[in-house]
Each structure stands twice: as structure tokens, then as C-alpha cells.
């Protein structure tokens, strides 16, 4: 049977792992290659790297980092942050990434999703959506949560699916870094309306939060960063506990 995935996320700035709260107040969280190896050994099902600087100069650093990670670990990994062209995708795939996540560039140019899916296959394209609850509406944000758009989370996710995205990575900005649980309602609505897998992100603080989002929102994967980086919950412990609570995971 297919298992639920636990995905540690490494936010990368200038070649280091960092983590903030509600997309702000960044703290250093260590060497990404070491963390990647540690998580892979502990049984992480995939890894996500998000380059949160993503300027031209740093892009080259990112590609060399991707290659270092790819040489070390034998689980799939996704790279995102500032990816906006076929060449960007080619560069990180050539360095050994398995998938890319696209966010702001897809909002600005939705045709990009289909273009990349056609060239690299749907399974390669993760549509990352950052959204915030504004007056009862889930609004899509771009550029690391800086700009609000007119797009609605659910419509945009559906459009992304139709255009060829292989997975949706939904980050609830209200929850990001708060450790008070994943967003359940919006994730549930996404899994009910989409045929592609949904990865929930934002709010993981306790083991029960994972159980909740798998059992109640029926997401396919859950992503977290700080609780793993600072050793608050180990992946081994998390998976053992999820198993006890009848969530089907690999261990």
C-alpha cells in the first residue's frame, strides 16, 4: 500500500539552512548537506530545498549545492525558489534534483506550468502555493509571501492541476513556523477537489499535528522544517508514533 510521506524542508539562504516564523525572522539552522544526510538516514521520504534568496549569483551556489546533496542521498528531492524558465529547471535536474517546485513565476505566467510539464513530465513539476486567509478568503501570495494576488487558493490549485502540475505544495502562511498545527479545512478542501497529490505545509509542532492532517484532511504528504532542524521531533520517533495511530508510513 502507498504510504504517507514525511518531507523535511530546508530553506536555503547563501548556502545555509535557515528558518523563520510567518516567513520572517530568519535563524541559521545548519549545513544543508549534513541535514539532508541525517534526514535521509532517519527515514525521511523525500526532501525539499527552497532557495529563499534566489538571485542570479546565488543560483550558481544553489546548483552546486544540489549536486552535493544528490551525490550523498538516495531519496528523492525537490528544488524550488526563483525557478522561472526551462533552463532553470534543466540546471537543477542536471545537478541531480528529481523535481522542481514553482511558485511566483507560475502565478505571473500560468503557461509555464504546461510548458515545463510537457518538457520534463508532470511528475517533475510541483506547484507551490503560499496562501493566507484574508476576510474569509484564501488568497494566493507570491515572492515568499510579500505580495498578495487576486487569485484564490482553490481555483489556482485546480488551474495548476489542469495545466499539468504533478503535485500541489500548499503552505498556509498563517501557520508557517507557529507550531500550532497544520491548516485542516483548506487542506481537506484541496484533497477533495484535486486528483493530484497534496503536500501540507506550515504549522507542524507536535506529532499529533501530523496525525490530524493525514487523518482529517487526507493529505498525501506533510512537510515541516523547524521541528526537525532543531531536533524537537526526530523522524524515527514521528513515524513510530504515526504507525501506532494507524497512519500508514514507511519505516
Amino acid at each position: 500500500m502507498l504510504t504517507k510521506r514525511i518531507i523535511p524542508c530546508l530553506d536555503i539562504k547563501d548556502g545555509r539552512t535557515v528558518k523563520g516564523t510567518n516567513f520572517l525572522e530568519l535563524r541559521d539552522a545548519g549545513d544543508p548537506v549534513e541535514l539532508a544526510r541525517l534526514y535521509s538516514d532517519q527515514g525521511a521520504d523525500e526532501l525539499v530545498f527552497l532557495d529563499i534568496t534566489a538571485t542570479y549569483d546565488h543560483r550558481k551556489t544553489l546548483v552546486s549545492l544540489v549536486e552535493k546533496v544528490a551525490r550523498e542521498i538516495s531519496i528523492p528531492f525537490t528544488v524550488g525558489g526563483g525557478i522561472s524558465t526551462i533552463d532553470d529547471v534543466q540546471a537543477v535536474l542536471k545537478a541531480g534534483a528529481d523535481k522542481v517546485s514553482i511558485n511566483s513565476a507560475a502565478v505571473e505566467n500560468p503557461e509555464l506550468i504546461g510548458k515545463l510539464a510537457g518538457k520534463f513530465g508532470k511528475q517533475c513539476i510541483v506547484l507551490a502555493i503560499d496562501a493566507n486567509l484574508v476576510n474569509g478568503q484564501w488568497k494566493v501570495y507570491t515572492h515568499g509571501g510579500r505580495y498578495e494576488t487576486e487569485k484564490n487558493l482553490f481555483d489556482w490549485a485546480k488551474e495548476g492541476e489542469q495545466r499539468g502540475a504533478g503535485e500541489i505544495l500548499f503552505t498556509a502562511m498563517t501557520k508557517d513556523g507557529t507550531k500550532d498545527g497544520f491548516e485542516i479545512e483548506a487542506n481537506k478542501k484541496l484533497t477533495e477537489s484535486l486528483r493530484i497529490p497534496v503536500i501540507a505545509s506550515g504549522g507542524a509542532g507536535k506529532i499529533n499535528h501530523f496525525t490530524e492532517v493525514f487523518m482529517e484532511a487526507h493529505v498525501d504528504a506533510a512537510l515541516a522544517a523547524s521541528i526537525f532542524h532543531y531536533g524537537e521531533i526526530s523522524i524515527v520517533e514521528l513515524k513510530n508514533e504515526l504507525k501506532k495511530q494507524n497512519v500508514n508510513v514507511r519505516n
Partner: protein
Amino acid sequence: MKIAIIDYGAGNIKSVQFALERMGYSGFLTGNAEKIWSADKVIFPGVGEAQTAMEALKEKGLDKVIPNLKQDVLGICLGMQLMCRWSEEGNTDCLNIFPMDTLEFPAPLKIPHVGWNELEKTNSKLFEGVAPGAFTYFVHSYYVPLSDFTVAQAEYGFPFSAALVKDNFYACQFHPEKSSKTGEQILKNFLNL
């Protein structure tokens, strides 16, 4: 040992090369027919879209090479599907090494089938030292039904072929190069055949 990894412009074939290196082997990426003919082992990886991939193979003349190889060949993911007769993806005629058709997972199953799934009913040297129920990583929207050539199966709504063998041709739907220790064991078994 000369290990050729067929490069026809599809997907992240680098990860196969890195996996071999971690295991102490070295493989070379090539789209050159002669180099493929003269290799000891051939790995035929691939992620991407069936029709585009078949066109790329034809352009390099590899559609005539691969089915006639005499050394051990390992197809991975799309590589396995291209080794079959036909694919529903893009209504594509494939290499016809395995006389089966590749079909799309029916609704309401989510596609792609992505993540770690258990290998069951393993029955090949490929799986020596691999415990029943071991997990490997899958990512695909199309599947090959069970057949006489199936040597491992996995379940997603129903059982489907996780691996196929016919003579010197081996194929797996999952990604051994991304399947942690289990995947490494399977690759090692292939290289030691």
C-alpha cells in the same frame, strides 16, 4: 565493468549515475549506439512523457539498438514502459520487448502514484536479499498490468507490475536509484547478474 546509462535527453538520469558511484561503481551517460553495444551492462532510465521519449530514441536510432542488446539491460520507470508494446500515454508504439500495454491509472485513483510502496511477490534474482514488503519509491501515472513477465508487484487500487523480466531484459517501475538501501541492493543484484 562498463555500465552504460542511456542518455536520450529524458529526465534526471544523473541520479542513476550518482547512485552507482555511491555503491563504488561508475557508469557513463551515452546516447551513442556503439558505446551501448559494447557495454557490459546497460541501464535505460527515464522520467518524462512516452511519446516525446520514443521520438528521442528514434532520432538517435536507439529504438533499433535497445531491443537487440544481448547484455543485461535494466529499464527504470518510463524506461520500463518504453520496453513494452504500446503506451496509452500519447497513444505511443514502444519497443515491444515485453508484449504488454501500458495503461493510465483509472479515476478516482490519484495520479501520479507518488511515494513509497511495498514490493510483493518478488520472484527474481533482482530481489535477492530484499525482504518481502520492502519499500521502494514510485512516481508514475501509467502502469503495466500483471503478466507472465511480472517478477514483483505493488498495489495501488489494484496490483500492477513493479518489475518485469524476460531473458536479458530487466525492468522496474519504481526508482531503485531513489529507494535508499533497498534500491541499492536491487541495483547491486542487477550488476552482479
